[in-house]
């Protein structure tokens, strides 16, 4: 070895030594959630994925804040996002003491979880002309973390990866021609192994509602599954060419079952929402047939995007009661591995996790008349009300906003109770025989006019109930003048948090429903509430900010405070115990 070589080797050794010396601190900073944390029942110090963990409990294992001291909860810090058009509708994530969240126009913020100090902020350049043409826009409902990246979808059809530490773009992949299809992405992505999975908007738009599997490291699209006619079997369930514009979509994130390597995802309704096929829906109307895989829960192989199995919750959904809305609560009971999924119709479906066979179906809400019932053994719709052209009489229950809205409930493994918001309202409806739409275009496809009305048993209202998730047996219930539209959080402190529509955050005793604490955030809630740890201290983070499409209905239904409630502002409010 020459002197020069020795010098080079020496320098290299010093450099490696320096790296080894410096690295421990950095190496301890995680850039992606640990597998064990994702697979756990409870989110612990972090909130690593949209539904808390893959179990989808929206449950925090933290108990510093508990029934004994929640009365001392107060605002620790706040953050105000820019351009909060339609409020804030996202669920934050937390990793290693840093809180990440998204606002409208897919703006993303990384904040010190203890102080709220901005670490980085990111604002993508969007196609503003396209955004101005979209109905379900420009809100964003969440993000995902993995592979050292943070992932966010955009309403102009892109999935963007940001470096988790710096917020700098890593890649930006155009997945949808949103100018043609109108639809883009508002829902949170889901990280599964080396993939990022995200579902397109759908339902009332005439496209085919794809779900994408994208390679996390590179942004390369690996697969695309069409929720409308995604297989040959499904193609046969759409009369004529109706599959070309069938709607569908998977606009809210599903979850992952690592035991079977299965992604569970809920799909949206077919388009048009309402059709005039009536009882002859298998042969007539704008979309004759069962319309697979709309309003279904589908099980996909995350590696290939291939369909493993499915259950269509509402064959030929004629009422706009998506399966997109519900979380997938994974419960093991009596030797059975189950998954509990809420459908927009107000029914809760309980499945066998290995094959999506029905284990039970139970109603969360009282006012349902689109069917007489759903067979709890088979899932068959009994006495379905298929609509024909003209006025629907009696009015349809629930209303188009559903018996269950898109935000999530919570499940406490500590007491075995499932906490879910239900909505009681109906609507007058006149089905119109509209002109078939044969190509995707920048237009909704509704097929009716309608008007919200109170249900037969009282005023339009909402409730939180605590139930056995498998049987539906109710332990307690809290009623609200207006349905809360945010997600629910359960914690190991034996608390259930409900951010409501008027702007109040409530904390209840998880066992009894007794209200133990409340604070007014000053504007309605439409987003997801989480808990996390920073600097050894537990925090509760809830975005406030009003303006979802369901929220828009509240002005006509309830008047004030919604008439005066701004829909272009919002704040992330973070609570902690008083020192």
């Amino acid at each position, binding site marked *: 070895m020459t002197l020069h070589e020795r010098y080079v080797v020496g320098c290299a050794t010093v450099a490696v030594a320096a790296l080894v010396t410096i690295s421990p601190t950095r190496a301890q900073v995680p850039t992606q959630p640990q597998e064990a944390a994702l697979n756990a029942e409870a989110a612990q110090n972090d909130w690593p994925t949209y539904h808390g963990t893959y179990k989808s409990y929206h449950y925090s294992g933290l108990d510093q804040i508990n029934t004994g001291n929640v009365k001392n909860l107060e605002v620790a810090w706040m953050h105000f996002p820019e351009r909060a*058009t339609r409020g804030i509708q996202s669920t934050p994530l937390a990793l290693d003491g840093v809180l990440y969240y998204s606002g409208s126009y897919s703006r993303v913020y990384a904040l010190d979880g203890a102080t709220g100090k901005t670490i980085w902020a990111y604002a993508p350049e969007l196609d503003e002309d396209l955004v101005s043409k979209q109905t379900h*826009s420009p809100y964003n409902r969440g993000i995902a973390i993995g592979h050292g990246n943070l992932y966010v979808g955009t309403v102009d059809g892109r999935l963007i990866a940001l470096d988790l530490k710096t917020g700098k773009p890593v890649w930006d992949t155009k997945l949808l021609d949103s100018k043609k299809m109108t639809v883009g992405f508002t829902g949170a992505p889901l990280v599964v192994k080396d993939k990022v999975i995200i579902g397109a908007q759908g339902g009332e738009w005439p496209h085919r509602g794809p779900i994408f599997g994208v390679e996390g490291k590179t942004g390369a699209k690996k697969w695309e599954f069409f929720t409308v006619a995604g297989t040959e079997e499904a193609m046969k369930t759409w009369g004529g060419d109706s599959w070309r514009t069938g709607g569908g979509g998977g606009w809210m994130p599903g979850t992952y079952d690592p035991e079977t390597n299965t992604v569970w995802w809920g799909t949206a309704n077919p388009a048009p929402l309402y059709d005039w096929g009536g009882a002859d829906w298998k042969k007539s109307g704008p979309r004759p047939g069962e319309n697979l895989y709309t309003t279904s829960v589908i099980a996909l192989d995350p590696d290939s995007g291939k369909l493993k199995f499915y259950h269509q919750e509402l064959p030929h959904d004629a009422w706009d009661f998506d399966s997109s809305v519900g979380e997938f609560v994974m419960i093991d009971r009596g030797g059975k591995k189950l998954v509990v999924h809420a459908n927009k119709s107000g029914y809760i479906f309980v499945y066998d996790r290995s094959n999506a066979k029905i284990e039970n179906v139970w109603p969360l809400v009282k006012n349902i008349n689109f069917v007489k019932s759903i067979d709890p053994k088979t899932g068959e719709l009994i006495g379905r009300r298929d609509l024909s052209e003209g006025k629907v009489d009696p009015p349809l229950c629930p209303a188009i906003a559903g018996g269950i809205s898109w935000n999530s409930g919570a499940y406490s493994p500590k007491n075995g109770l499932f906490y879910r918001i239900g909505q009681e309202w109906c609507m007058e409806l006149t089905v119109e025989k*509209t002109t078939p739409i044969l190509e995707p275009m920048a237009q909704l496809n509704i097929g009716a*006019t*309608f008007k*919200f009305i109170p249900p037969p048993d009282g005023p339009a209202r909402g409730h939180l109930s605590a139930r056995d998730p498998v049987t539906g047996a109710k332990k307690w219930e809290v009623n609200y003048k207006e349905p809360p539209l945010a997600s629910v959080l359960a914690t190991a402190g034996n608390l259930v948090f409900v951010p409501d529509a008027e702007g109040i955050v409530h904390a209840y005793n998880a066992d009894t429903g007794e209200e133990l604490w409340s604070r007014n955030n000053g504007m309605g809630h439409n987003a997801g509430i989480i808990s996390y740890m920073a600097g050894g201290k537990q925090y509760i983070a809830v975005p406030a900010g009003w303006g979802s499409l369901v929220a*828009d209905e509240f002005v006509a239904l309830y008047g004030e405070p919604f008439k005066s409630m701004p829909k272009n502002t919002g704040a992330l409010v973070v609570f902690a115990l008083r020192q």
Partner: protein
Amino acid sequence: MRIPSVIIASLALIWPCLSIAAFAQQSTGAGAENPLPQAEASPNDIDGEKMFATTCGFCHQDGGRHAGRGPKLSKSERSDEYIVERIKKGKPGAMPAYGGVFSDGQIIAILAYIRGLDD
């Protein structure tokens, strides 16, 4: 100021021609990015009521007779120009802009439908 009803009626009558012309333009122009299937369909597409039920009824309840996500439209005191402009340009965060989706003839048909609404 209101557009005279006779103009609305005339526009409604000539809609099929406007529709074909619009389609011809779009198949070669920038508008091809947002194809208008109505242009291929029957003259009944000019039916403002059907157009309303396809798209507008999602927010303007009871066919525009009742406030919902959007305001009540029947007996609106807004001028025709205001309504046409709002349909074309929308309102950020509240109403999509339909200027690139609907032709002028279709927008007039929707306006005619709105003006004909009873409470």
